[in-house]
């Protein structure tokens, strides 16, 4: 068959392709015009494109602490703001404290960070205000990072917090922080730390371009449509009452366990610890890492206050308890014979471990047991409905307790050996 015989067929193909191209061209023009109009209307209605830093993950990978907060998030909303050091603060801070300033570092998870709250309502800021009211020239730094546990806190302490030369450190050990994970050593691909995930090319493209367009912002984050739709008097969906979804921690860590259960292809990592010995194993891990954090600070002559878990974990009704963000405890229901029993048992174990190790390393450990035993969601407004994150009133209560302890900190044992060196 010669090429000449293909001519009619070829011209048909050419004509068809040209028609398709014409349609595609005009459709693109129409789509672009519509999108431009929509973008213009959205902007006239006061909508703004999202900030790339807030639109991406709230955390970035780190080589020592697992991950840290994304720095330089300067969006309008208080609860996403971070400074250039990645601290949840709008103020820029010097590495070393100014002379005469009493610097306190508060470390922990999102409980320290204060998700969904104005900066003035977070624990560090309320503590700073309280200390200043009491006549100290205090500067309290918020080292809280979503999803942190003690393993992250230890890395953060030795790599970064010590460099800021705080005079005192407050460790807020909520339930999540008290279960340091054991990462697997076997990895053939780079491990994504909890709360940090690699975006696909399309996802990352969309995120980056959404910074310049309201429409793309809505495409990337459809919930952003809620506000303009509500403003128009329409309702897409009612906001769930009691659902307290933090920026990263509970969701990011769902499915994580404090014990090594990641089955390797060779079966090297299988956890064969008998059920009855598992609390001891967890205690050993908690004590080891807590001791390491406290030792690092003690050796630098820094005073330490430890805040044990704070929440309505004893008197709360079963229905509310089941709604709390207590995935880490749910893993141990089998050991204790139920969620409530597991919660009470684990709380007792954790509090005991914290008190013993804290005492050994010269830390002040707050006693929140009686408050925890009396508190319920119905009778107290100190904790939000997720059972983990305190409310502004809860933070105020904790700030008061911490401020009292800071004034009575014993002289750190480390000072003696420093004197010896001098």
């Amino acid at each position: 068959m010669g090429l000449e015989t293909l001519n009619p067929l070829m011209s048909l193909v050419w004509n068809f392709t040209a028609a398709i191209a014409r349609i595609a061209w005009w459709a693109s023009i129409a789509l672009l015009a519509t999108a431009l109009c929509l973008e213009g209307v959205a902007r006239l209605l006061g909508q703004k494109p999202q900030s790339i830093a807030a639109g991406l993950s709230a955390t970035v990978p780190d080589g020592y602490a697992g991950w840290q907060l994304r720095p330089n998030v300067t969006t309008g909303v208080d609860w996403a703001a971070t400074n250039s050091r990645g601290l949840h603060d709008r103020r820029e801070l010097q590495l070393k404290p100014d002379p005469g300033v009493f610097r306190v570092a508060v470390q922990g998870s999102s409980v320290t960070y204060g998700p969904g709250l104005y900066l003035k309502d977070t624990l560090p800021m309320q503590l700073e205000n309280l200390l200043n009211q009491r006549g100290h020239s205090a500067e309290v730094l918020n080292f809280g990072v979503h999803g942190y546990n003690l393993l992250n806190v230890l890395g953060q302490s030795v790599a970064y917090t010590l460099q800021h030369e705080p005079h005192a450190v407050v460790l807020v050990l909520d339930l999540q922080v008290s279960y340091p994970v054991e990462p697997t050593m076997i990895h053939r691909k780079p491990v994504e730390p909890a709360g940090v995930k690699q975006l696909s090319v399309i996802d990352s493209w969309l995120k980056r371009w959404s910074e310049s367009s309201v429409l793309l912002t809505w495409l990337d984050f459809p919930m952003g449509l809620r506000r303009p739709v509500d403003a128009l008097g329409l309702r897409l969906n009612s906001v769930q009452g009691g659902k307290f979804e933090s920026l990263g921690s509970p969701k990011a860590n769902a499915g994580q366990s404090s014990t090594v259960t990641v089955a390797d292809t060779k079966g090297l990592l299988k956890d064969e610890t008998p059920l009855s010995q598992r609390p001891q194993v967890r205690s050993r891990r908690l004590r080891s890492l807590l001791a390491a954090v406290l030792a690092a600070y003690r050796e630098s002559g820094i005073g330490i206050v430890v805040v044990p878990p704070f929440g309505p974990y004893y008197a709360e009704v079963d229905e509310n308890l089941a709604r709390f963000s207590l995935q880490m405890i749910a893993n141990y229901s089998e050991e204790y014979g139920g969620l409530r029993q597991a919660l009470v048992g684990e709380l007792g174990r954790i509090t005991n471990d914290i008190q013993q190790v804290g005492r050994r390393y010269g830390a002040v450990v707050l006693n929140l047991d009686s408050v925890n035993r009396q508190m319920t969601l119905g009778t107290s407004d100190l904790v939000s409905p997720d059972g983990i994150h305190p409310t502004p009133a809860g933070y105020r209560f904790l700030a008061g307790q911490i401020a009292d302890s800071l004034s009575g900190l014993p002289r750190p044992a480390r000072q003696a050996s420093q004197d010896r060196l001098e």
Partner: protein
Amino acid sequence: MPVRWLLIGRLAQVVSVTLALLFATGLAAESLLRICGLWPLDPAQVHSDIVPDSYSGWRMRPDVHAAREQEITNNFGFHDQREYANKPAPNLERVIVQGSSVVYGLKCGLSETLPRQLERALLKAKSNPVEVLNFGVQGYSLLNAVGQTSAYALAFQPTAAVIVLDIQMCYPEEPIPVPRPEPDARGVKRLDPTEAWLRRSAKHSVLLSIVAAPGQLQLRLKRLLPLALKQEKAGKIPSAPVNELGTPNDSAKTPPGIKKSRTGTVGNPAAAMARSRRLRSVLGALLAAYSESGVAVLVVTPFGPYYQVTDEVLARFTLHHVTPFIPEYGGFRQAVHGELARIRVDVETVVQEYGAVLVDMTPENLKLTADAPPYFLKDGVHPSPSGYSYLASRIVPVLVEAMNRERQKGN
């Protein structure tokens, strides 16, 4: 129209034939190179021999089954051919040895490394079985070791841990306190797509290996052929890993301020105090973590011929960590001795505080010369096989005693 199509057809023909010829030539060259005894590079040679880690900064690249023993790592990235379970077998005591390339065993066969020599000596000294794991990672300081301990080492449930402190280990760095989108791991860089593809493919082809790492060809040809391509410099030390990781290498060769000390005393107590505080904090964290887990810990102080050598020899040692303190002490020798003394006091204090056991190598250091006995490589930092043997003989009696004591405490 027909001419255009004919031209396109001819062009396609030429391209296909050229590609086929190129492919055939490549295959022939690949076969020839393999017949000549050249093989594709190991991953550790093509890539970096370390990989980033989220808690310890970096660690050894796992699963390197290289021809050269010096590069071998197992599934976990230990410098070892054996694979281990997370939990030691019943009645098997496990000892882990942590440190930098000094523990890893640069330029040593596997059987000559410190952990393996310790294992042999322990098996002779103890009645029950024992295994020793090599947790040494190139370029480590105590900061990395704390992350390694809390994230990984404790999970291996050791009976005892031996922390080998060379001079590099005693300067835990302070990472830049500003979060960056890229993970911070010195010596690990992100490759562009072409480079990454080339390096990955190099595992399967000698030709691509040569393109990816041309320096390796010279090394391999030198080994293969009797002809010397280039005279090897006498006294040229294989660069310590820390140097490969980007720290200025030349600072150790030509310390800028080598001069006789007038006073020999510390010139800046505040700066020395700050270094002491950092060392004590990080070492304290490490020892506390083990202490709470009931693990017996031995800490070995820096071991090296730093006293009975001439200034010239000392200047050739890889001691660039001390170089910045020359102005404080008035000379390189004084800085080395001053810092060694400070480190010893700090380590001893913290070791006592946390109930660990100290293996102080200062008495040996005071007597050692650069090559008599020949305990060290020319860099003055990494022991030779006989140096490791001596170190093992110093550690074993103390370690056995510490392990027995810890067992009695447990009972």
